[in-house]
């Protein structure tokens, strides 16, 4: 029999077995793991043990979030199939079982449609895992307005007020020390029409009324703007490794450009009577589902901890973290691709509670 080989690099663990017929490899990424313990629950040979998650997350204990006993592990790949955040990867002959037909995988996804996205960055800010990057290219300010501007250089006294006031840095003066040959403080003044936004600040601030300017957009609207020049362009990117499909992006998006499909359905129940408000669940939850309600002076709140279930992925990490058993996470549906194996099907079903 070929024995399993375990490799530990920092907190990343790999269990391998290479026989002449087949090579199997299970790898665990600690920084992706959320400490939910689903792998521990599904492992058919009890080879996985969840570590002291609270101590690791809250007090900086340097331990791996799970431990894999390579002498027990049969390299079946079930833990990888059900990991809700893909912290466990399982390969057979260097191919992920998520790409091998017949192996069930959780049906979950998160997408941002570039067609609908207006690049407002709300999702980027809200994402609890910092998995979203919105790159946007804004048009030149001057492309959003049109107008006319002229400085009467004869009237101008070169005071420099307009140059100082211009919010678009469109006015420049050629300052110089006066000499007897040229007894002026500036030789010239210019307006960069590529930069000018026709706000008319210069005109209003000029002490000698040397500037004539008019905003055509204010007077006549946007008829002479080129719509292509005013477009906000951009792109969105979701780091699939970091994303846990929590749904924050979908909920916060003002234009329904984000779509999230969750693998688990269920219910999150909090016993407010039992809760001691220690905050362990808040720190463990990978989805920012939980928060402490705002204190209202002189008012005894009914809730110790508030849950916004629409962000919940029903991973159960909070239930495991709670020291006083005040949280119950029920899983009522596990969505996965089909498998012909009855034992796998049964195991997938066992995740329901």
């Amino acid at each position, binding site marked *: 029999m070929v024995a399993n080989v375990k490799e530990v690099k920092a907190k990343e663990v790999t269990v391998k077995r290479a026989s002449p017929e087949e090579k199997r490899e299970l790898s665990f990424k600690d920084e992706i793991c959320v400490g939910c313990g689903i792998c521990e629950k599904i492992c058919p040979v009890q080879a996985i043990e969840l570590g002291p998650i*609270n*101590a690791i997350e*809250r007090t900086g*204990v340097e331990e791996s979030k799970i431990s894999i006993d390579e002498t027990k592990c049969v390299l079946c790949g079930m833990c990888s199939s059900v990991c809700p955040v893909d912290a466990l990867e399982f390969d057979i002959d260097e191919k992920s079982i998520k790409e091998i037909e017949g192996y069930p995988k959780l049906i979950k996804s998160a997408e941002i449609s570039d067609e609908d996205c207006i690049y407002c960055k709300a999702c980027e800010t809200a994402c609890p895992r910092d998995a979203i990057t919105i790159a946007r290219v804004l048009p030149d300010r001057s492309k959003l307005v049109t107008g006319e501007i002229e400085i009467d250089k004869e009237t101008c006294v070169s005071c420099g007020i307009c140059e100082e006031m211009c919010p678009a840095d469109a006015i420049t003066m050629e300052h110089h020390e006066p000499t007897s040959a040229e007894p002026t403080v500036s030789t010239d003044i210019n307006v960069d029409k590529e930069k000018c936004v026709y706000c008319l600040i210069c005109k209003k601030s000029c002490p000698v009324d040397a500037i004539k300017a008019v905003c055509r957009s204010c007077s006549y609207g946007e008829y002479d703007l080129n719509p292509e020049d005013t477009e906000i362009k951009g792109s969105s990117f979701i780091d699939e490794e970091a994303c846990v499909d929590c749904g924050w992006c979908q909920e916060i998006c003002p234009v329904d450009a984000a779509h999230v499909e969750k693998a688990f359905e269920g219910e999150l129940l909090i016993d407010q009577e039992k809760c*001691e408000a*220690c*905050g362990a669940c808040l720190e463990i939850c990978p989805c920012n589902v939980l928060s402490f309600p705002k204190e209202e002076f002189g008012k005894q709140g009914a809730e110790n901890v508030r849950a916004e279930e629409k962000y919940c992925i029903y991973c159960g990490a909070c239930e495991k973290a709670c020291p*006083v058993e005040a949280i119950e996470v029920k899983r009522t549906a596990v969505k996965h691709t089909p498998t012909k194996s009855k034992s796998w099907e049964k195991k997938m079903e066992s995740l329901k509670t």
Partner: protein
Amino acid sequence: MVELKVDQDKCLGCGNCVVSCPVNGAISPESAGGHGPKTEEVIMMVENGLVKLFNVDKCTQCGTCPLFCPTDAIYLE
């Protein structure tokens, strides 16, 4: 195996750990209110000005008390 430990040399006897511990609160609700626990069934209590562990087996290593200890006298290791 991670365990709850106490370094009495560092302890100021402030009782933050006793009050913040959610398990203490569940066993002896008055301790969460800031009073001393009324039973030795709790995990830790301040005795003669220093914290003492009474039932360390009840600790779930939730990490709350180390967050509130001003001197790192109570810790998980």
